[in-house]
């Protein structure tokens, strides 16, 4: 087994080298030994498969499973009537493990089978006969909100899964008094996180109905509670163990609950482990993309460029079932308002059910979708007012000490510096001919407090092992972002140790502290703070035990234990002393970080997060006026993520996030043929390849945030937020007209240039 010994510590910063920061399993990954969900095998394992609806909307008249039971090797066949089929959901409970008398999209789960191999399971599916009575379907979200529209769920009348209508200040008056009003409509399609490893899980159970699900999740503890409730199994009987995760990007926060529930039900029925896995096509057609959005936006300004008001009317496309789509819709409809000082705001947002693939979330939570709209509109205003887009942003941007329109408390903020630095880096004041330049700002909550206001913090344990090394137990998740490297570093800084002496234990709900998981940029900010506190607690316990052992006061400094009489004690001696004295216990530091409660009122006004990260990106592009072909030459990203704890991992987050932002803006997006996903493959749903990546540069403006550990703030999500706005503005600058629909394909740019579709 390779070890990481060779990698040194940077003597200047004390920060361990990249090998360590990429996480403890980096050598397993690079040698092909790392075990992912798709690699899992358990003795006696069966394979589960799902029969899916071929209809967008239909009544299920009859299901005949007799043929499936007759297939050799088949061990279980489940339909809605054979199970409890309790409703469940993340925000609204609109799903059941299997569709009952009605299917609502092409792919809806109708039956599930388990067999000794994949082939038999496939044959069993073919042997199930289902009679459907097709019903009229609705595919367009605006149409779904219409009066005579087909209804998807009786309990959500008008096809509204969630809605919001809010006003801050007096927008009506502000629009009346404005010198300039600009407006436009924007359209952003559904996108898939496109983690490279399709979701896979193995559920195993015993005769006492103890259920263990092996699957990689960003929020295993939350999923565990949902599964326990949906299956009516006591929580103590449900355990989730995580293999290595092949990418998450928000798509594995709650992953594919349906798959976990069905494999669990099949395992409980057969007593055998059951493996289920989505094919790549299923990932696109029944996995969980992020909601599409139609955004109508207006802005009111004074002649001098002062922002007065913003009004938005937003319809988001939920698909057939909801998951986190309401939360994503909320972030999408509000977060960008916090980027600038906008005193008067009116927002109407509606999340509409349609007979299409159900949705969930993606990195940046819709914030990047709305950013495309709001940052495009700011450039429209800049052009009308003949003000430089950079100056217009600098004049209005949020600054430290502000309380924003929705009540966010901005304790640290270097947005203005980020804007200036990004502009300088891209050559804003020294432009090349025939190139277009655009700039955009971004904000993202770092350490959301409102996922569960009662459980808004995080906890961690730091244990002194008998060999003098430290193990940190955490419920947070690392899938390559560098979280565990950062945690090792944080604990090491507190204890005065080398980060390589701190090991991370994770991904097992039976053992690790429970957590809200890897979302809302909370890992470093909240999880890291808990690790810091656990390490501080452990340090105190070590000093106490050492003092008792030495019979005189002992202080721990720079990793060394020194008595008042200058005698050095070894950590392993103290660990062993305590272990024997307590007949088997170990020194166990506990850290709990409970951030101040949020003053979040019924209108959603309040401070929703521990802190906020900021960024500004600038893009340089070239547009071929004859074809509309777009070349993104460079993107310069400047970030305020507080103090950067793990620079190597931060670099990976920035480049990776910028590239996903590029994909979101220029290539990606669901295409539908009525209810069917028309591009359900990696050939047709194009993500950026190595050939597409532009020149990327970045820098950090390091603020000292009072809340994050050692002043750190989140980075992983905010990095994607400003990309679409920056590129779209650069394209408008180059083309002389604006595209208001993503992705920015050559065809759309060409139409905009030739005046065919969109006006600037």
């Amino acid at each position, binding site marked *: 087994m390779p070890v990481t010994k060779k990698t040194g510590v940077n003597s200047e910063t004390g920060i361990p080298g*990249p090998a360590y920061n990429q996480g403890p399993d980096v050598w397993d990954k*690079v040698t092909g030994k790392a075990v992912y969900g798709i690699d899992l095998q358990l003795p006696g394992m069966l394979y589960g498969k799902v029969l899916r609806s071929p209809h967008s909307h239909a009544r299920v008249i009859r299901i005949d499973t007799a043929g499936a039971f007759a297939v050799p090797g088949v061990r279980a066949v489940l339909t809605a009537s054979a199970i409890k089929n309790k409703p469940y959901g993340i925000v609204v409970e609109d799903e059941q493990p299997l569709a009952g008398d009605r299917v609502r999209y092409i792919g809806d789960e109708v039956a599930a089978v388990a067999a000794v191999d994949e082939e038999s399971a496939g044959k069993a599916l073919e042997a199930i006969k289902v009679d459907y009575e097709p019903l009229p379907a609705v595919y367009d979200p605006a149409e779904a909100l219409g009066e005579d529209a087909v209804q998807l769920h009786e309990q959500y009348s008008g096809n509204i899964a969630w809605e919001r209508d809010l006003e801050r200040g007096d927008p009506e008056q502000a629009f009346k008094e404005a010198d300039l009003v600009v407006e436009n409509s924007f359209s952003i399609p559904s996108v898939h996180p496109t983690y490279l*490893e399709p979701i896979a899980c193995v559920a195993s159970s015993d005769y006492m109905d103890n259920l263990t699900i092996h699957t990689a999740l960003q929020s295993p503890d939350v999923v565990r509670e949902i599964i326990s409730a949906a299956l009516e199994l006591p929580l103590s009987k449900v355990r989730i163990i995580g293999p290595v995760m*092949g990418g998450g990007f928000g798509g594995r926060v709650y992953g594919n609950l349906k798959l976990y529930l069905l494999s669990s039900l099949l395992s409980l029925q057969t007593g055998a482990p059951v493996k289920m896995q989505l094919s790549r096509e299923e990932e696109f057609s029944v996995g969980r993309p992020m909601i599409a959005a139609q955004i109508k936006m207006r802005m009111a300004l004074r002649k001098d460029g002062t922002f007065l008001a913003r009004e938005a009317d937003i319809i988001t496309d939920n698909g057939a079932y909801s998951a986190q789509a309401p939360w994503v819709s909320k972030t999408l409809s509000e977060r960008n308002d916090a980027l600038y000082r906008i005193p008067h705001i009116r927002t109407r947002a509606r999340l509409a059910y349609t007979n299409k693939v159900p949705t969930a979330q993606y990195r940046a939570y819709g914030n990047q979708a709305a950013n495309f709209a709001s940052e495009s509109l700011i450039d429209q205003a800049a052009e009308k007012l003949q003000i430089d887009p950079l100056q217009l942003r600098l004049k209005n941007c949020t600054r430290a000490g502000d309380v924003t329109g929705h009540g966010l408390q901005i304790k640290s903020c270097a947005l203005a510096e980020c804007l200036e630095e990004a502009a300088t880096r891209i050559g804003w004041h020294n432009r090349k001919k025939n190139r277009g330049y655009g700039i955009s700002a971004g904000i993202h909550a770092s350490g959301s407090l409102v996922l569960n206001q009662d459980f808004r913090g995080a906890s961690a344990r730091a244990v002194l092992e008998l060999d003098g090394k430290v193990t940190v137990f955490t419920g947070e998740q690392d899938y390559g972002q560098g979280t565990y490297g950062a945690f090792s570093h944080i604990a090491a800084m507190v204890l005065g140790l080398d980060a390589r002496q701190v090991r991370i234990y994770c991904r097992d709900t039976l053992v690790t502290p429970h957590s809200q998981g890897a979302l809302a940029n909370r890992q470093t900010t909240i999880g890291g703070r808990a690790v810091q506190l656990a390490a501080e607690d452990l340090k105190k316990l070590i000093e106490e035990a050492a003092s008792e052992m030495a019979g005189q006061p002992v202080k721990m400094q720079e990793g060394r234990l020194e008595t008042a009489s200058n005698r050095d004690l070894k950590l392993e001696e103290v660990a062993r002393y305590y272990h024997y004295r307590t007949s088997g216990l170990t020194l166990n530091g506990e850290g709990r970080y409970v951030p101040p409660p949020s003053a979040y009122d019924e209108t959603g006004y309040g401070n929703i997060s521990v802190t906020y990260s900021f960024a500004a990106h600038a893009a340089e592009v070239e547009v071929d006026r004859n074809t509309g072909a777009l070349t993104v030459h460079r993107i310069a990203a400047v970030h305020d993520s507080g103090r950067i704890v793990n620079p190597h991992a931060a670099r990976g987050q920035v480049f990776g996030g910028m*590239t996903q932002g590029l994909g979101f803006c220029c290539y990606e997006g669901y295409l539908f043929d009525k209810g069917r996903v028309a591009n359900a*493959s990696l050939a047709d749903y194009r993500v950026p*390849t*190595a050939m597409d990546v532009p020149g990327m540069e970045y820098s950090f403006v390091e603020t000292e945030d009072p809340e994050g550990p050692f002043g750190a703030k989140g980075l992983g999500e905010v990095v994607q937020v400003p990309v679409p706005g920056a590129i779209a503005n650069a394209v408008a600058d180059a083309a002389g007209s604006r595209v208001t629909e993503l992705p920015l394909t050559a065809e759309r740019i060409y139409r905009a240039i030739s005046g065919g579709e969109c006006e600037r």
Partner: protein
Amino acid sequence: MKEQVIRFEINGEKAEVYADPTLSLLHLLRSRFNLIGTKEGCRKGECGTCTVLLDGQAVNSCLVPAGKVEGKKVLTIEGVTREGALKGKRVHPLQQSFVEKGAVQCGFCTPGMVMSAYALLRDNPSPSPEQVREAISGNLCRCSGYKQIEEAVLEAAKTMQEKQG
């Protein structure tokens, strides 16, 4: 289809297996030889995570029928690791530089990336950045933005050249 005997060489060892020749090489490697380092991301030749070398050429093993490897040499990520070990290193220089340059994040694309890079350096020991990007353009990565991977391959090329010289 009916199973038949397939004889080939895998990671320098002789192998003989009875298998349906229409199954994919990927399936054979993962299910019959337990070589799980070759990943399955799409089964359609669109993601590159299953890249292996077939007689020195980088191929998507999900698109190669098992029967087609008869008499050929297959190299997987496990074989590349062993190559490094045989030279007294923990890993191959490519793997070392992938780690050192921060080119490994979730790691799911990594084995396939290493294999494409291995094939490139075999034919072209000192590639340009453009040639590296082209060589890995069939391997998708969602975490990195490819920059660190490109740097890792260039760095490995340098290390390997120095050793030769």
